[in-house]
């Protein structure tokens, strides 16, 4: 998963004098049934907006997440970074209130807001105690439909985004992934920088950002997810009062350029100021709607997705040639990416690349053991169960899958994984991880920045 969050910097900085502060016990009475048995209620408003609701009573906190099906994927070459710029600007004032109002209102309710831009979607997320639900929905509606894009605020926010870009550059773990996406999806929107380029960002103005807003921020292009200790009827009434007032626009998503496969080796080495080296290998992967994505999820888990996976066990704990390593399969709407990322000493880069390929080859030849298959399914089941601990976990899961596949993919995910055989896992490794065609990037210590 790659994207850009409004609060990126704040989250990164929390590592300082971290851990807890103190707290009031504000837990709602648990519902009689466990949330396992609960299912979402999905309704489409007359104006085309999709509303997903789930009753969830672990705490008195409602997650109201607005997902807009726009992101880097729809940007034009001269509009790179506009989806993300748009995301920032929606917090900077509407025709009803000025900048800062949203943060004051949400935090004054004891809540939190966040926003995130990726390739297929932009999401605005508010968490509030349940009596603030109406306020939260009203704010999301105002942000999406009534933002003013004041030129003065645009200029100030542009600087914030440039600063965000330098923070990302400073963090080698995220920078190496970002650059890997560029190699794996060369020439395709999935390979573009979420934060845009200095040229496109400097050219952004009120008319352009307003135009982007009226083109993409339409009810038909929105999914609203509301999860918390509330019934569907009450939620729907509040949504009708806000989002329900906007008319249909007849929005049709624009076409997207086709994706060229990786042929042969694509290699890049970058000199960086850090003493530690970073290595990433990537392949194109199937989209969420392709049934192969389930088997490939298991491939990634078995090779490098858990503490006891093969790469962790052999390269990190056994041979000790990496200090950290992980593998992940990330499915998007049109495609996906499966990658291995490692932190290591600069002298070991070539050896580690070869060892990763060895481990892939071994899985392609022998397939996984039955124990490994079961372990990988348990891991997925567990991630699923832990996501359902919180209302925001559920709202994220539902929104993400609605924007890149179907809700049914999420609800039946574990069940489908259970049905994948060892042979299917082996075959997915053969089909999607050719050791002759992939992208590879390394960050090594050097003077250059």
């Amino acid at each position, binding site marked *: 998963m790659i994207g850009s969050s409004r609060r990126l910097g704040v989250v990164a900085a929390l590592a300082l004098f*971290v851990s807890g502060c*103190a707290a009031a016990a504000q*837990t709602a009475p648990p519902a009689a049934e466990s949330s396992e048995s609960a299912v979402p209620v999905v309704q489409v408003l007359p104006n085309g907006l999709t509303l997903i609701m789930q009753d969830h009573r672990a705490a008195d906190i409602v997650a109201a997440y607005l997902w807009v099906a726009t992101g880097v994927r729809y940007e034009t070459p001269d509009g790179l970074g506009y989806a993300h710029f748009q995301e920032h600007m929606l917090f900077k004032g509407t025709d009803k209130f000025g900048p800062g109002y949203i943060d004051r209102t949400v935090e004054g309710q004891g809540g939190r807001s966040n926003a995130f831009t990726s390739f297929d979607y932009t999401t605005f997320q508010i968490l509030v105690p349940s009596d603030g639900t109406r306020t939260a929905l009203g704010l999301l509606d105002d942000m999406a439909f009534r933002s003013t894009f004041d030129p003065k605020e645009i200029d100030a926010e542009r600087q914030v985004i440039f600063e965000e870009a330098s923070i990302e550059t400073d963090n080698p773990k995220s920078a190496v992934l970002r650059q890997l996406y560029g190699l794996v999806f060369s020439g395709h929107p999935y390979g573009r920088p979420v934060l845009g380029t200095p040229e496109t960002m400097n050219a952004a103005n009120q008319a352009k950002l307003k135009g982007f807003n009226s083109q993409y921020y339409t009810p038909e292009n929105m999914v609203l997810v509301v999860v918390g200790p509330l019934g569907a009827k009450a939620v729907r009434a509040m949504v009708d009062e806000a989002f329900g007032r906007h008319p249909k626009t007849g929005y049709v998503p624009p076409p997207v350029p086709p994706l060229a496969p990786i042929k042969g080796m694509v290699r890049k080495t970058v000199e960086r100021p850090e003493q530690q080296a970073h290595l990433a290998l990537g392949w194109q992967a199937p989209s969420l709607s392709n049934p192969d994505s389930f088997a490939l999820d298991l491939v990634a888990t078995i090779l490098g997705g858990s503490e006891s996976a093969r790469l962790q066990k052999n390269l990190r704990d056994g041979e000790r040639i990496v200090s950290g390593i992980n593998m992940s399969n990330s499915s998007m709407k049109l495609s996906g990416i499966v990658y291995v990322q490692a932190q290591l000493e600069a002298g070991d880069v070539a050896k580690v690349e070869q060892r990763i390929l060895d481990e892939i080859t071994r899985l392609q030849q022998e397939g996984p053991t039955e124990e490994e298959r079961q372990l990988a399914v348990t891991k997925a089941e567990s991630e699923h169960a832990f996501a359902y601990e919180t209302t925001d976990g559920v709202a994220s899961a539902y929104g993400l899958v609605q924007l890149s596949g179907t809700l049914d993919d999420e609800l039946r995910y574990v069940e489908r994984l259970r049905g994948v055989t060892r042979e299917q896992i082996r075959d997915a490794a053969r089909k999607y991880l050719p050791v002759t065609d992939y992208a590879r990037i390394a960050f090594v210590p050097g003077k250059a920045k």
Partner: protein
Amino acid sequence: MTRRSFALTAALILLAPVAASAQSGGVTRTRLPNGLTVLVRENPAAPVVAYSLMVKMGTRTETPDIAGISNLLQQMLVRGTEKLNGEQIAEAADRMGGSIDAYGDADYSEITATALSRNWQEMLELVGDCALRPTLPDGTVQTVRDFLVRQIRNRGDKPFDVASDKMRAALFGSNPYAWDPLGRRESVERLAREALVAYYRRYYVPGQMVLAVVGDVRTAEVIPQIQRIFGAMPAGTVASPAVPAPPAMAATREVAVVAGAQAQILMAALAPALTHPDHPPLKVLTALLGGGMASRFFSELRDQQALAYTTLAQYQARVDTSAFVSILGTAPENVPRAAPALTQQLERIRTQQASAEEVAVARAYVLGSQAMDRRTNARQAWYLAFYEVAGVGYEFLDRYAADVKKVTPADVQRVAQKYLDVLRTVIVQPK
């Protein structure tokens, strides 16, 4: 609860010495006869469970020559027991659909574990195994120590870590809060197995330990199992060592160079321990200045003046004298304007009283933070255990929340004048 599990529970209780239990706010507190405190909260929302085993041991129980020993010891606990090696521990946790990890912090050290709740008993066994029967194998000690030394080295690559290490050292002097829980390179390099064994024996005694359990489990089933696994530890307690007081505050300014695109500006002062009556108003002050996106730092320095991307204030709840730290991350060319702007913010809160509305938002932010941070079972277990280890009991949270609700604009100004009149500054920038 089924009749069958009740019968089993009853039988186990008869075998063991009786433990004293009390229930409030959905939490059951039990003191085992050997002194171990157990807290259990049932939460059926998702089929998962979390454990937090905390020990009153951390940088606060360290001296400069053994700085980092608590964290090293914790890391070793999950890398080998009499039954399992480190790899097998990780595999076992994976099989349970969970994880187990351990680390040292300033006031405490924690073994934290989660699992699918159907495996609650197996995970409890594993936590017990790691805590009670670690082998601290010599070769692994070296490997983990080398790994930690590299982590300490890598902190030197990150402008923010460099700035916070320098600030911590300036604020706390010879007090152990002066170093990061990772420790100092010179001390960690020399830590040998014998030192770890002695340290473990001294602090892993039941009177020093708290086990919190939160999740889709039954209290009546969990407590007898904890009694069975941990009840055999011989009773014991140990006084935490006396620690040198931090140096008196002085206005200092330190500038350091670290390659990278961002500059970091930190301005900080000593601040009272969590039991001090000034703790709640200073928490509200911290939220008002740099808590969330409605805070002054974020709205004025970032949103209005575009002088920062990252900017916040922190004041951590500590058993002993803590610190208020304001943080600003920005482009190097902004430093000449950003540093005075941050100073001005810290000045204004002392000279002008904040509005009632602004203080109300900050109070709501502090209270909201707590509710938000306690959404998962793992964080709930952490809170239960931490306040117990800190000696104030988990009920402290309720008293604290009540105190926060009473904080007035005058209180905020008073603590600003009391604690923020003298500040230390650290600036880290590229060249």
